[in-house]
């Protein structure tokens, strides 16, 4: 009974959004050059799915985002655990780290273009750069906020530093690491699409968004934005599913 209620509420929410959109379009006759009507956007969705490059576009964007994300995840976790385990390292680096994390990565795009050109490498690098700081800082916090009793316990019972890291500290930090990974996931998609819009590419959702914009095809623009949004939404759903199975001992897990 509870489950159906929740499902229905979600449905109502979406209907509300659609309704508002339709009202604004049909009743208030908003400028269609700015906000296309729902039927036009749905029609364009059909066009998009049937277009030649769609799988290539979707695939390229996903591949770039994923590549950048994975690089950032691995590096971020390793560096984060190091920083958390060696406080003097953290004290040294926390200020520059925070600085780079706070600088909008899109502001650094000219530098990336200069060093790595406009190919995939620069987009992946930018994505990895943006996501790295999120994961690293969250991983470091995970170690900081880990329960000292557990680490003490491990050492008392004869675990070496390395063993303690593997069997205790890593798991202790895991909830924070997962938070970092989740934020970085959305971030990866955002940065990749923005990069594609600015730097250009042969295939990519961001490229298509930019093209629709320059060619005044508003319905298509909204269509591509919607698809991009769906990709991000689905990615988060998948992540949440695995998160629940990965951390059964953590009581406070996100719901969807």
């Amino acid at each position, binding site marked *: 009974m509870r489950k159906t209620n929740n499902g229905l509420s979600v449905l109502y929410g979406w209907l509300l959004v659609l309704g508002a959109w339709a009202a604004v379009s049909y009743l208030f006759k908003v400028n269609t050059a700015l906000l296309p009507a729902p039927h036009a956007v749905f029609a364009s969705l059909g066009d998009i799915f049937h277009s030649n490059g769609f799988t290539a576009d979707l695939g390229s964007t996903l591949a770039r985002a994923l590549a950048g994300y994975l690089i950032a995840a691995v590096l971020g976790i390793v560096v984060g655990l190091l920083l958390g385990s060696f406080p003097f390292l953290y004290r040294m680096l926390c200020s520059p780290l925070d600085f780079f994390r706070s600088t909008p990565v899109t502001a650094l795009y000219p530098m990336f273009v200069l060093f790595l*050109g*406009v190919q995939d490498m620069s987009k992946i690098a930018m994505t990895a750069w943006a996501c790295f700081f999120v994961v690293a800082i969250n991983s470091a916090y995970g170690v900081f906020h880990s329960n000292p009793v557990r680490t003490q316990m491990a050492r008392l019972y004869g675990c070496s530093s390395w063993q303690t890291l593997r069997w205790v500290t890593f798991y202790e930090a895991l909830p924070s690491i997962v938070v970092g990974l989740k934020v970085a996931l959305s971030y990866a998609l955002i940065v990749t699409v923005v990069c594609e819009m600015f*730097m*250009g*590419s*042969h295939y990519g959702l961001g*490229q298509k968004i930019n*093209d629709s914009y*320059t060619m*005044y095809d508003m319905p298509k623009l909204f269509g591509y934005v919607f698809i991009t949004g769906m990709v991000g939404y689905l990615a988060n759903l998948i992540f949440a599913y695995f998160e629940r199975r990965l951390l059964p001992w953590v009581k406070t897990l996100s719901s969807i």
Partner: protein
Amino acid sequence: MKRYLLQVVLALLAFSQVNAEKVTLALARNPWCGLGHVAEAKGFFKEEGLDVEIQYLQSGRHALDSVLAGSAQVGFIGDPPMAFIGYTGKKNLLVLDVTVLSRACAIVARRSAGIRIPADLRGKRIAYSSGTASAFFVYKYLAKHGIKPTEVVLTGVQPMAIATSVVAGGVDAASSWDVYISTTVRRLGKDAIVFHDSSVYTAYVMDVADRSWAKSHPRAVAALHRALAKASEFVAKNPREAKQIMAQYCAMDAESMEDNWPLLDFTLRAPEQALNQIAQDGEWIHNELEGYRSKPVPDYSMYFDAPHEKDK
């Protein structure tokens, strides 16, 4: 009697100052908007009783956005954005004049990428900016030399990034126009090779106004036309000073300005002369670009006054 006459004249002058028409004009920092820059620099707008506020934007396409959104009344806009906007059915635009014909579109490539002749472009990565003159130029240029779009790797790049993309090696060639081509050539030095072909595509830049504004402010429209006509004359008679002004407003160096000068024709022309070009663009879009085949080619005369509609 003379004193009264003087007073009347002064009053009229004062009156015209107070009632100077306010116009927001969207321009790009680009030699293609040259007439606008010259008119502003030489005070022609003020002379014709126009209180012009200039919005400096990145490109003609942005100028069109500004006019559509209502933050500018007039903008200098190229034919590609006009061709595309036709497909949206937006009618509230009116082309006032043709301010410049530009043959400055070109493809700049790196010799080190193995490009000596147009045919070498086959199989290469070429950057262009979608929705702009560079898009039209690259497609048409390739078509002229028998290269299909599928035989090259076309990468959409923002105009400002064109130079870097070629220099940094992300692409082998780029289709763009004067400012960016010059920058790229300068940075590549001996490695640069440029492919011009004015027969393939000529860009028309027009001043385009919000139609309802134009219809309700015929005096301003006329004043604008006169100011631009003066600018056009000035350019013809004083090329050196005109180049200086444009170079200054566009942040271009004198050398690049010199190189591009012969490719730009600043004669002020009647708007109808652009109709053909825009219509051709529209047809081309319909035939060549995916997704447009199902849409009918728009009737672009909606952006022009029928001869009998013209005031003055």
